[in-house]
């Protein structure tokens, strides 16, 4: 471990805090439908969309209608992408003449991009045409991110409104988020990445002659534009198989820092927006504080584990930290930090191979996802995820101040508890259930690259990543089989929408309630006490369920590594 390494981690946390408020202010304007400087140019475009679609943006919808609109939109997107991927061979912009995808791969990929997971069972440059990348996949990078933010908006309205019947208008939220946030931000960001050395071209691959005289095909394409939304929208699906470890996706230290920061930017900003909307920005800061506390602990553990290295390697004379599967350009600290960020948020972009981390170093990313990606989390999804924990935390501990529990002025009653438990139970149910299934089935075991507990970690990681809509891979696992593509596709769909539906129902139920004015008798949800409590609730209610699985995977693996056992 080095001082620079720790400074990088703490400096990054400080940057996130700095970014949160400006981003939150901007998001709040969009949430409220207020006029922004961009309206002068984009206002007519926005109105044009409404007119074309026959949508009245002022029409307030109840949670059911909001949910139906959202589901219909996502289903159409799913079908569209599935069709494009299947018909890739006959569609244009296919410079390498790539054929259509197999049914299960197309299904898996379409679900993956629709659900903001961006799990990739394939290597992008070898399977996807430019058309598939730009039309079939990149649109989802925008729409799945916008869907997440829109849903967070609906949830925020649930807390902020009083005695209201609606939670907003899905179409208006989608249009505004895309138009006033994602598109302009990505435009600027892509240009910055271009300046940092990321290519942007439609000319396809180039052939190069290497120093040894061999011929090599180097894939090229509109990388910068995809890179921007991949990070900002916590999508994580890379243009290249190597993702952000590829020099064309992530050329240097500065782009690396910028990419890490952009993963957290919107998620962190939404906490501020939440606080502002419920009338007390301290509420938002408290949530962000809890997120960053858990994050810093996780990053610290990963960094320590990676920097300590592997004693088996040490015995072979390879000194220092664990550099297996890491880019030398980034080193131990930046790789450990990136891995923690990408799994804390629901991004899934990687700049190192998580499979090659030490077992404990790899357990932190795994655990981050198992907590439901509430540590900043996916755009929108992180906020509504942690708010579900807030509801449970307030319910359990809130009674201890002698009042029936309330959070930001809303009474938490049977209905909210039931729905929150439902949403939070989805994760262990699917992750553990499907991992168990894969761990005992022929087809499941076939995909492993390793034996022993590490192979188990690979399977566990895949399902965790899918259900949590992360999309990062532990690598190692060969997932492009009908078994894994199918099962993981289902896992991604359930992991996204089986959390969203109960969450929306809570939003509807909360919006209809009165606001209880805060008093000194109200449960305090702003101070350090609450931050600590929230972290404990996340770890105990969210994390404890996975302890047996973690014990048999990474923990057994780590113990074996320290004892020098090989499998």
């Amino acid at each position, binding site marked *: 471990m080095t001082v620079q390494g720790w400074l990088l981690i703490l400096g990054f946390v400080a940057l996130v805090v700095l970014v949160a408020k400006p981003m939150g202010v901007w998001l709040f304007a969009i949430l409220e439908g207020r006029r922004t400087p961009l309206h002068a140019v984009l206002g007519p475009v926005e109105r044009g969309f409404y007119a074309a679609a026959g949508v009245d943006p002022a029409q307030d919808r109840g949670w059911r209608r909001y949910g139906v609109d959202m589901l219909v939109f996502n289903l159409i997107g799913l079908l569209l992408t599935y069709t494009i991927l299947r018909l890739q061979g006959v569609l244009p912009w296919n410079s390498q003449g790539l054929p259509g995808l197999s049914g299960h791969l197309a299904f898996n990929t379409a679900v993956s991009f629709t659900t903001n997971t961006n799990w990739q069972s394939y290597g992008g440059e070898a399977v996807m045409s430019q058309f598939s990348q730009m039309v079939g996949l990149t649109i989802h990078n925008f729409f799945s991110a916008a869907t997440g933010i829109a849903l967070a908006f609906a949830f925020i309205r649930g807390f902020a409104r009083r005695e209201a019947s609606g939670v907003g208008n899905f179409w208006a939220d989608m249009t505004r988020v895309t138009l006033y946030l994602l598109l302009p931000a990505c435009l600027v960001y892509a240009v910055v990445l271009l300046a940092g050395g990321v290519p942007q071209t439609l000319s396809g691959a180039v052939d190069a002659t290497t120093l040894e005289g061999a011929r090599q095909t180097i894939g090229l394409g509109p990388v910068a534009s995809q890179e921007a939304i991949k990070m900002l929208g916590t999508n994580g699906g890379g243009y290249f198989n190597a993702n952000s470890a590829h020099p064309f996706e992530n050329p240097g230290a500065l782009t690396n820092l910028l990419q890490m920061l952009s993963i957290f930017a919107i998620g962190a900003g939404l906490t501020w927006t939440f606080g502002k909307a419920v009338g007390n920005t301290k509420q938002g800061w408290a949530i962000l504080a809890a997120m960053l506390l858990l994050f810093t602990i996780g990053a610290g553990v990963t960094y320590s584990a990676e920097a300590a290295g592997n004693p088996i390697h040490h015995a072979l004379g390879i000194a220092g930290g664990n550099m297996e599967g890491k880019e030398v350009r980034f080193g131990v600290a930046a790789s450990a930090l990136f891995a923690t960020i990408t799994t804390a948020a629901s991004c899934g972009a990687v700049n190192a191979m998580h499979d090659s981390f030490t077992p404990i170093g790899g357990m932190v990313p795994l655990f981050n996802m198992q907590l439901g990606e509430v540590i900043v989390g996916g755009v929108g999804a992180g906020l509504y995820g942690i708010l579900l924990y807030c509801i449970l935390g307030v319910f359990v501990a809130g*009674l*201890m101040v002698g009042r029936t529990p309330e959070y930001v002025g809303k009474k938490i009653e049977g209905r909210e*508890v039931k729905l929150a438990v439902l949403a939070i139970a989805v994760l262990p149910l699917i992750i553990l259930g499907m991992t168990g299934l894969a761990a005992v089935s022929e087809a499941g075991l076939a995909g492993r690259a390793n034996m022993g507990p590490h192979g188990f970690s690979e399977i566990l990681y895949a399902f965790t990543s899918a259900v949590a809509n992360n999309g990062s891979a532990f690598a190692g696992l060969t997932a492009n089989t009908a078994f894994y593509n199918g099962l993981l596709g289902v896992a991604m769909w359930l992991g996204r929408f089986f959390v969203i539906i109960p969450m929306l129902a809570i939003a509807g139920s909360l919006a209809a309630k*009165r606001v209880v004015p805060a008093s*000194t008798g109200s449960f*305090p949800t702003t101070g350090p006490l609450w931050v600590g409590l929230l972290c404990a609730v996340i770890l105990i209610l969210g994390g404890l*369920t996975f302890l047996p699985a973690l014990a048999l995977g990474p923990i057994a693996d780590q113990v074996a590594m320290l004892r020098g056992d090989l499998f």
Partner: protein
Amino acid sequence: MSRTASPSMFSGTLIGPAIAGAFAKLDPRQLIRNPVMFVTAVVALLLTVLLIVGSPGGGIAFKAQLVFWLWLTVLFGNFAEALAEGRGKAQAASLRATKGELTGNRIVGSGTESVPASALKVGDIVLVSVGELIPADGEVVEGVASVNEAAITGESAPVIREGGGDRSAVTAGTRVVSDYLKVRVTAGPGQGFLDRMIALVEGAERQKTPNEIALTILLVGLTIVFLIAVGTIPMFANYAAGAVPVVILAALLITLIPTTIAALLSAIGIAGMDRLVRFNVLAKSGRAVEAAGDIDVLLLDKTGTITLGDRQASEFRAVGRASERELAEAVMLASLADETPEGRSSVVLAREKYGVDVALPAGAEIIAFSAQTRLSGVRTDDTFVQKGAVDSILKIVPDSPAAAELRRVTDEIARAGGTPLAVVRDGRILGAIYLKDIIKGGIRERFVELRRMGIRTVMITGDNPLTAASIAAEAGVDDFLAQATPEDKLAFIRKEQVGGRLVAMCGDGTNDAPALAQADVGVAMNTGTQAAREAGNMVDLDSDPTKLIEIVGLGKQLLMTRGALTTFSISNDVAKYFAILPAMFVVLYPGLAVLNVMGLATPESAILSAIIFNALIIPLLVPLALKGVKYRPVGAGALLARNLAIYGVGGLISPFIGIKLIDLAVSGLGLA
């Protein structure tokens, strides 16, 4: 409150039936009402079967002990509930005894007929003579009588009951000790106040309260999550080319699911209602008790709650050319025969502050206060002193500079929150008596406490706004409602509720009924009318409006106890994982022995110790569940910090110590 002398918590008379009750409650139809304990019972049954047919995983002695402790866990939970119910049942039995078999004299035509109380219908009129028990709840239609209500209130001093006023309600089972009453029956057989009270304390018709239901949902949710966590372990173990015996999985499941709070949940609820009953307050529903904890605004009547009922003379103000001593002498003379608190305090003030001492001359004519003249006085052979309401005095004396000054002085007194009485001697205005509302001792401190708890107090008074403002300031209430009519009260409550606040109030008159019904917690005085008692969701048997403050505390205590034990129960899980996981997995990967942080002797001993801890913690916490977590009137932040430290952090650490100690005992005794 003489009825608080009920059996102590662990007296033998309650323990015995509670143990019997614990076994009776093994009836699956009863167990299913508590899903977590039901799961525990099912698992215990499963292991019992496995014990008999034989299964892998440890020796027969180990498995027999596991089964024994699992059943004990279920029984402990049942015992806690039975014990809480037992206390109520004992009270209900004594109530039933007082009620006995009542008979009534129904008025038929011009005579009466004796019928059993069960034959009385709503609308019947009964005659109750001296010495008889009132056969049914009703309203006095004729007569004035003193009634001994000790059977209900525990208060042996009789109270007056008469028709037409705010004291017209009578309760079945109370005794007429003077005169007679004609009572119109308002409650049919089995519907009366006493019947409801019996049902309430007995807990027979206990409905789960909204918060209890929500908590049960959470506990069921956690149980399902842990079922998944434990249910998938065999597949994971299979991957590691091993197997985990069902016995051990079952043990892990039972320690993880929130058995502690589930076992104590209904006991906490019953004990909470019971505390209220001991406090001589009857809540008609558990919902009302919970709402009491949530109260944001307390509406308190000024008289009797904030101030002593009586006003006292605090100063004499002379006007014109009269001296204070002259005034004091006149006041004393006029008040010597006045037995009202105002009169008595005037005499004391004149003697102690002004050193005046006059005696009532023989043959003096005493003019008593009358509502028409609003004056009282004394006429002797050589003087005539009158005192009374300022307006009335001004009517009987000619306008003069002294009259103008009197007006000014009395306005001043009113502004300062006092009530002025004017004094005239032989047609000459002497000055005014300053009558002051005396704020009850300690009440100001109570309001400070309430404010710290985040509760706003609002004083309700019939006084004018000036007087009300001044008393409000002196008593330290946050707000006041002056010249309040029943409609004003109702409107005020509605306004607060629209703002999202919960309001509590107490009242006794029929005109209070709408407000009592509208309030989230409406406490009716037992001396009040039937309408008020019907409208409120609590009845205070002692008719003491100050109790509203304690009722809020009791409501909070109930919720806090529930929260504290839930937090404790959930944080226990961390240690239990560390006890059982290494024991379970060490056969798969020997290296996982590092997770055995407590250094437990053997895998069997670790599992058994965790199960024993899980069972024993229930009876250990029964006293806390029944007594309730101590409530302190401090802000929510301080309360949370304290309870989190005790029940959260304590819940995290204590099982590590407890399980280790049990393990030492278990391995020391060679049990596993």
